[in-house]
């Protein structure tokens, strides 16, 4: 197996550190849905929008707390997805293990799930899903995605386990997601996750994007294969690069080392 770079190893460590900090409640209080860090409240932007639509109003402080992660995403892109999110970490591990073990996927299913055959559908469904959940939230009066949000479920159960020593049945969403990732690789974080898509919406002009040095690039396509969120760094436009989670997968995979993640 290829050695992973120090930065890549660090990227696997940071979500674990954050999960640990949430578990021991050191410095942080709350979950990623809403947390307070050094007396500053930070709230999940998607949760904020859903809750505001459902309740037809919002406290001003909640708006401010939801703008902080949006501002961070506008500046740094979806670094949350690549460096902090525990679901992203879990699915990353799943993919890596699966690459080694090669779990057999039924041929038909494999074909129908192949990201490159989906074309436009894979680009639209994430955004449309955000819209769908916002619509349900507004019409039926509850934050619809929060009920099933794997990210929220994971951190909520970490908090439940650390404060009360139990976990809820909803944690079963994690093995389900892992199973989906095995059968339909790269389907969650890049294609479907509404939280990630919400961050993508403001990330188009963020700093740190994969830059390809065209003079040494041989267009081998390895970087596109390595990307977790189905970007082809060589051909991607600004809108597609908004999905980039700064995971460094492309720059590590590039055989010519001609991709840098830079402003």
């Amino acid at each position, binding site marked *: 197996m290829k050695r992973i770079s120090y930065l890549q190893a660090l990227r696997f460590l940071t979500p674990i550190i954050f999960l640990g900090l949430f578990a021991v*409640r050191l410095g942080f*209080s*709350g*979950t990623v*849905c*809403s*947390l*307070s860090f050094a007396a500053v*409240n930070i*709230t*999940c932007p998607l*949760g*904020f929008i859903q*809750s505001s639509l*459902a*309740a037809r109003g*919002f*406290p001003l*402080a*909640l708006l401010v*707390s939801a703008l902080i992660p949006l501002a961070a995403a506008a500046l740094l892109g979806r670094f949350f997805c690549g460096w902090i999110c525990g679901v992203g970490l879990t699915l990353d591990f799943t993919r890596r293990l699966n690459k080694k073990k090669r779990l057999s996927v039924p041929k038909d299913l494999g074909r129908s799930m192949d990201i490159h055959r*989906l*074309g*436009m*559908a894979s680009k*639209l*469904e994430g955004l*449309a*899903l955000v819209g*769908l*959940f916002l619509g*349900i939230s507004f*019409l*039926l*009066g*509850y*934050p*619809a*995605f*929060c*009920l*099933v949000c794997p990210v*929220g*479920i994971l951190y*909520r159960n970490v*908090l*439940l386990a650390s*404060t*009360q020593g139990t976990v*809820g*049945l*909803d944690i079963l969403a994690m093995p389900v997601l892992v199973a989906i990732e095995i059968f339909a690789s790269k389907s969650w974080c890049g294609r479907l996750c509404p939280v990630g898509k919400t961050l993508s919406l403001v990330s188009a002009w963020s700093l740190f994007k994969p830059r390809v040095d065209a003079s040494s690039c041989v267009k081998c396509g390895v970087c596109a294969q390595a990307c977790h969120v189905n970007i082809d760094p060589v051909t991607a436009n600004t809108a597609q690069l908004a999905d980039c989670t700064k995971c460094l997968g492309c720059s590590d995979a590039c055989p010519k080392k001609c991709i840098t993640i830079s402003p």
Partner: protein
Amino acid sequence: MKIDRRTFLRLLAQFSAAGVLAGFIPAYVKPSKTIVRPPGAVEEDLFLARCLRCGRCMEVCPTGTITLVGVDMGLLALGTPRVDALRGPCESFAGRCEGLLPCVRSCPSGALQWGRRIKLGSAEIDRSLCIAWRRNGGCLVCKEVCPVPEAIQVQEKKPHFNPDACLGCGRCVYACPAEPKALKVASTGALRTS
């Protein structure tokens, strides 16, 4: 942007599935209206709309009485806080949290708000399980721990509960020595903020 028929049908199928999953199942699996909410909870419908299911009220609760609703009480209420007197009493009245209400302070969404008066619900007794009622006296632990003078009245060595005076703090439930507990807190008469 051109969308061919296959893509369109695919999206349609996916969205119907997601819509059913996220919209209609929870709507039909409505939580029972009997969930006892933490102090300062707004009206139930608004509460379900506002609550971010973030768990911060549970985290800051010093008595550990706030826990999170599991899937057993309906998907719609999943992850929202409830007060479980078996875990500890709510000390928002005559206790550690009086005038402080860490749960209300921690709530970022406005689902929990400062209210003029707190009443989580009221304690209910099952006389067939109560030691005093079964043995004609002997146990008045509930009366001893109750912070509200009029909530429990003792007549002929037996406790009588007054649901109007009771604040639903759950001290009696937590302390009740009967096995299984003769007392529980129901959301009956709970005061919700608006």
